[in-house]
């Protein structure tokens, strides 16, 4: 009977419930495994990164899947979120003892900072038509990385010291601390991220994005994606809605950055963690998981974060195997011939299942 109930439910609602249930069930399983000591250190260490990438992938999916705009600079927003929040927690960690409050402030700061940059980029770019957002976000990611590497901010009893490109200009007293130290980035960040925090963030973000895409605004955004001219002709303010969706998307990436920064004790802006390679990796999660499917993004992010770690046994071959798996997965998921083949097999399964039921 319960099944019937599910069936009579609205399709989208059912879809959302499945996603929430999936996250919660995985969380419960993982927690039981940890408490019973059945989980390896490697897996435990991977839990927070998985949450981080799931969050950023959800953010990018909103942009790519629902807004229909390609962004290859989401790592830049992550970077903004990571640095602004780590800066803030380093500054406040002495005055605020409660870790939960400190982390909430960090999330707020990181999200707002990333949203601000998203908004700033969105204003001029989203007026244009075509793939420009992709290139401008790519450029933004590279700029932010470059700028952070020459930024020096320190604090001592004389107040704040600030320098660009030359850290020697700052004469710091004995017990002063570096907040941002050029290429060294921010060090000694309090360890605030945890798997529980990550899962709560995922659930909250899922709640926000599901509500967003099913709201009037969300439908307007999708209308723009499907047919801009038709949407415009029915009086939808294109730029406004695009900007709104893009800003939210950037903010979510920023939240991912907050989780990233507070998981490791140090954060630096290097090409491997906040460069275009990372942006593209996140795009891979989104495309592989299915554009417009937040659940897919989470699953893809989890699998692809796990994969290279699981392949560690293969030594030097692991990145090679990883790249092959990536290509094969893409072909399997997207090539028309593979889709056809999959459908045939699925149909067979259904048939035999029905026979058995009968």
């Amino acid at each position: 009977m319960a099944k019937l109930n599910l069936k009579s439910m609205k399709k989208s609602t059912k879809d959302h419930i499945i996603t929430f249930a999936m996250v919660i069930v995985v969380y419960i399983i993982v927690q039981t495994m940890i408490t019973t000591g059945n989980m390896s250190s490697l897996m435990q260490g991977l839990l927070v990164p998985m949450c981080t990438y799931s969050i950023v992938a959800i953010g990018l999916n909103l942009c790519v899947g629902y807004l229909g705009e390609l962004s290859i600079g989401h790592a830049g927003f992550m970077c903004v979120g990571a640095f602004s929040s780590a800066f803030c927690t380093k500054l406040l960690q002495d005055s605020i003892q409660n870790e939960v409050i400190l982390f909430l402030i960090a999330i707020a700061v990181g999200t707002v900072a990333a949203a601000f940059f998203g908004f700033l980029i969105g204003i001029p770019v989203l007026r244009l038509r075509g793939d420009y957002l992709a290139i401008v976000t790519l450029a933004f990611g590279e700029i932010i990385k470059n700028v952070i590497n020459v930024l020096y901010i320190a604090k001592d009893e004389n107040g704040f010291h600030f320098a660009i490109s030359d850290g020697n200009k700052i004469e710091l007293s004995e017990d002063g601390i570096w907040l941002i130290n050029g290429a060294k980035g921010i060090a000694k960040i309090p360890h605030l991220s945890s798997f529980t925090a990550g899962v709560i963030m995922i659930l909250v973000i899922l709640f926000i994005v599901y509500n967003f895409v099913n709201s009037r605004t969300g439908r307007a955004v999708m209308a723009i994606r499907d047919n801009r001219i038709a949407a415009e002709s029915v009086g939808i303010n294109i730029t406004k809605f695009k900007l709104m969706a893009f800003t939210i998307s950037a903010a979510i990436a920023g939240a991912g950055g907050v989780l990233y920064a507070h998981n490791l004790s140090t954060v630096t802006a290097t090409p491997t963690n906040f460069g275009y390679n990372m942006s593209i990796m996140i795009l891979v999660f989104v495309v592989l998981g299915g554009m417009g499917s937040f659940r897919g993004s989470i699953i893809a992010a989890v699998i692809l974060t796990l994969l290279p770690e699981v392949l560690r046994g293969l030594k030097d071959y692991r990145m090679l195997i990883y790249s092959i798996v990536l290509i094969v997965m893409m072909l399997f998921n997207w090539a028309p011939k593979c889709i056809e083949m999959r459908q045939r097999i699925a149909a067979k399964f259904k048939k035999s299942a029905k026979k058995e039921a009968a």
Partner: protein
Amino acid sequence: MKKAVSMFLAAALAVGTFAGCGSSADTGSTGSAASTESGSTDSAADGSVFKIGGIGPTTGAAAIYGSAVMNAAQIAVDEINEAGGINGYQVEFKAEDDQSDAEKSVNAYNSLKDWGMQVLMGTVTTTPCIAVADKTAEDGMFEITPSASSTDVIENDNVFQACFTDPNLGTASAQYIGENKLATKVAVIYDSSDVYSSGIEATFVKEAANQGFEVVAEEAFTADSKTDFSTQLQKAQSEGADLVFLPIYYTEASIILNQANGMGYEPTFFGCDGMDGILDVKNFDTSLAEGLMLLTPFVADADDEKTQAFVSKYKELYGDTPNQFGADAYDAIYAIKAAIEEAGVTPDMSVSDIGTALTEAMTKISVDGLTGDGMTWEATGEVSKAPKAMVIKDGAYTAM
């Protein structure tokens, strides 16, 4: 269609997790297989072998450094085992890749922990090392890094360095140039996106003020634009610099030497330990490096027996000439050996007990290694050894 995709992904996830369990079980069994080989019938958990883990980039843009470290460490471990191990216990070494990324480095660390690592020789690069040092402090694991040279790395008590610190090298270089009156006008070309390079640069410039020369140009490049150095060289030339300080790695330095030659600019070039290896870049025209000076603890064609034995073994096994990274890693392994012997720890002790004992022993030992004789360690984690000034003459390193 969407459903099919998500179904597939869910299936893949399931496979992924199973594979995860499978592989961790695998490593467990290989671990025990290896220890069976080394003469014990039980699994490694009973503490019949010392398990040393190594973390460094063996893929990615910094792979050249990580591979050198892992290869050299393996040589040192094999030597130790042949000679009867440490206090009679055999040593196992396992290397994990971190692609020089902090997050992946922590993953590598966790993976080595699952393997049963007791002592960490790593990580090779600075930023990942800071992240991992945080984890080793939590677990009380003893850590010695072969080449992460920032002072931030050794803030925790349990972490030691086998290499010089960046401030050390920067100051030493400036003093050397000043004392020997090598130049009056100096230009610096450095990698502003790299911790090692920008760390040396900062202290070099600071110390230069106390020495009798002037820094006329500080020119940077970044990881994203390290192909063309003509502008930096041109600026140095037009400012009249007669010495160019290059606190960078030899890959970029080889281009700089090439381009300076093309421009007809012939200052003295002066490098640090990252410059070691430049003569072994395959197909490199070594005449370009003529007159290049460098402060380094290690040169591959030194005359002493130890270096020669190491270099010939490295060449035989890996077909390359080892660089300073490898030498530091080799010494790091021997430092671990010395510390274990000093502390008298046994493999069946817990990781944190071994860690505490080794941390204490570290300040008491003295190691004669490839990168210096009588190396000792401060409680801060810094090594004391003297960099040697070398100059390249007739295509070979010569002591100055």
